[in-house]
């Protein structure tokens, strides 16, 4: 995949994702409980890791991808945050900086990597076959009979 240019909306979204973790880390310097602190932190922890994995998708998404992005991003993010926090507590090494720093690093790396052909990020035909379409052609979810040839 070509290196994304910051001029495209997708590249801008990924750059914003990459920045969001460091912003979340920075706002922890604000007084505890302040909405300016917990809202960015919650938004980052609850959405960014999942979005970083699911958002970088090549070409046109297939229908349903929007809802899938919305539906899967939060559980995936919270799962990654859970594993990070659990690992830190098991190692008796928990601190806010470590927790948010690891997640921010993960999101930054994931956002910089090329798109991964994850299911929710998928496009085009689901499996190669005689009726395979050119890459990047949107795929109608309800469209029947494009996969049954395998």
């Amino acid at each position: 995949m070509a290196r994304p240019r910051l001029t495209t909306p997708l590249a801008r979204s990924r750059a914003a994702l990459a920045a969001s973790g460091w912003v979340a880390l920075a706002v922890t310097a604000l007084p505890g409980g302040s909405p300016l602190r917990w809202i960015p932190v919650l938004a980052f922890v609850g959405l960014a890791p999942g979005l970083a994995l699911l958002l970088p998708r090549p070409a046109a998404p297939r229908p349903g991808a929007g809802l899938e992005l919305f539906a899967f991003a939060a559980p995936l993010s919270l799962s990654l945050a859970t594993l990070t926090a659990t690992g830190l507590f098991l190692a008796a090494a928990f601190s806010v900086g470590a927790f948010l720093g690891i997640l921010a690093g993960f999101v930054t790396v994931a956002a910089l990597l090329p798109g991964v052909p994850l299911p929710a990020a998928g496009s085009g035909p689901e499996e190669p076959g005689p009726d395979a379409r050119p890459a990047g052609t949107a795929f109608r979810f309800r469209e029947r009979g494009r996969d049954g040839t395998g």
Partner: protein
Amino acid sequence: MSEGTGPDGREQGAATATADTAPPRPEEPAGTPDDPAGAAPPRAEEPAGTPPAPEDPAGAAPPRPPAGTARGLAALRGPAALALAPLLVAAALWLWSLSRIGFRSIDEFGLLDRFPVSFYASLVVLTLGFVLTLRRAGTAPAWPAVYSVAMLFALKAPPAILYDTVRYAWASKHDAIITRLLAEGTVHPGAELTGGMSAYDQWPGFFALDAALVRAFGVEAAASFINWAPVVLGLLTLPLLLLVYRTFSDDWRLVWTAVWIFQLANWVGQDYLSPQGFSYLLYLTVLAVVVRHFVRPGSAGPLRDRAFLDPAAAAVPPATTARRRAVAVVLLVPVVAAVNASHQLTPLMLCMTLAALCLTRRYRNLGLLAVSGALMLAWYLTMGRELFLGTLATLREKLGDLLGNSRPGFAGDPTGPGPELVGNANVLMILVLGGLAVAAVLLRRRLARSALPLILAAGASAPLVAVNDYGGEMIFRVYLFGLPGAAFFAAAAIVPAAGAASRAALAARRAAVVALPLALVAMLAGFLPSYYGKEGMHYVQPGEIELTRRAFDRAPEGALVLAATGAFTDAYYRYDRYERWFFTEQEVDENLRMLKDPAGYLAGGIPAGRPAYVILTPTQAEAVIGEGYLPPGGFATLTDSLKKSPLFAVVEESRFGVVLRYRPTTTG
């Protein structure tokens, strides 16, 4: 299972190809005599390359307006005023009611007689507004979404907005676990804590997440956001349900009705800030990914043939290659791992569900099942080793005890008008939901066949009832995991398929005009007692919490703290410092024996030389009745007896409760 086999018994590669070449079904007219608003599921396929509309995320709404925000606005235009009016009326009634909910003076019916009439009116208006929007659900699916979110908020936000203390004793227990985790900075999976509290160190995932959020938010404890958990979990669950249901139905009316019913039938109180609530969300995530992205090639058979499918059914999603499924497994590993790190039972439920799905050719994904099973076993045998081996040891005793394992709670039947009403409402809800779901499975065989994975997923965890009682909660968990499928088919029973022209279909559609709103209002009437009928156990005055904490702080480390039940806020306050004895949480016969001489009974159970304190609060009085531990009046008898006994000295007494200290020296 034979779902992937064609009528002639052959594998369906060729049959699918036939279905592939079948001409698309023509667009139905927007309005028919039976479906005047045109709510029938759209049929026409759009040319490839059409971008999806954001308000039609599952990709099925038919007429595609322009792009961007214009599409969203377009969805709200037109007959939007008709859809908006009930929402505004309901919002006004709800807001007006909010400050009039008498939660500080809860009596025997929980919040039921403390909600003003306008609160109930707002919920009924929301229900009717939702039914109205269903008529245009095919073309404006955003409106049922708005109503579903509004209903979620209307039902579950009041405690979050109003209460000044943590709602629900078990949520407060989880708050205590998070607080301890932060104080310790680590977990001790091998350490033994009384009262089964070691398990929380062995499955610390969810608490670690909360502890991290507490620190990252800079707040004192999870108590500051704990009451919002039901709303947040509900919001996160909703799109997952939508994805699952859209996989099996093209009919937006059916899909949204199923989502609505799920919300109303989810009364079992597992949606508070809890590992099981969080794990359930992750379980649904895995289920949604699987049903949408794990279809094996060549397995659809006739299930893409419109002539075969129920008019409301969706064709089987596109199949995915083994490589893409493998990538999806990698994507799911953190989710499954988080389930395993957070909760004991959900991983087993997940594996059983995946195993049940393997019974279909469509979803025979042994790789995912193997990965999930391996993760589960890895956790069970390392972090959760002690509890896992302990549970295995009791299996012989519990195995096959269907009645015992399916009994809710420990004790007898709830006593008092409020708890009895709750009990009856629960039973009625189960009967109505189950009855509707079974009726739909029997009457809409084709839908049942195409949505077979939902049926299998719903029933997958039922065998666990034969294995273990899970502390009296197994029956609730089995219900919860059966709910997605049950809600879908219950909706199918009251949302008849549009398009079918038989006399029976016409009659069903006419009946549904009345039956649908009636059924939804009836379920609403069942939800409220189930969810709010025991609120006396769930809302605690700040004064009671202060009394409880003072009692614990007063007791020396290592003391034994007695309470009638653990179902009161802060029962587990600083739980690693004290041992607890919740002395009515046993068989009713034993409690009746205890009531004959409470002081002597308790003194007999206190180890010699052990400092001991008794905390009795109004919330416990509600709980022993609500859970059926004590007969009516039993708690007052107990309290009076202890206060008069020379074995116990009153340390503190107020309307928020009484604290007594054990005086062993007077026992002679």
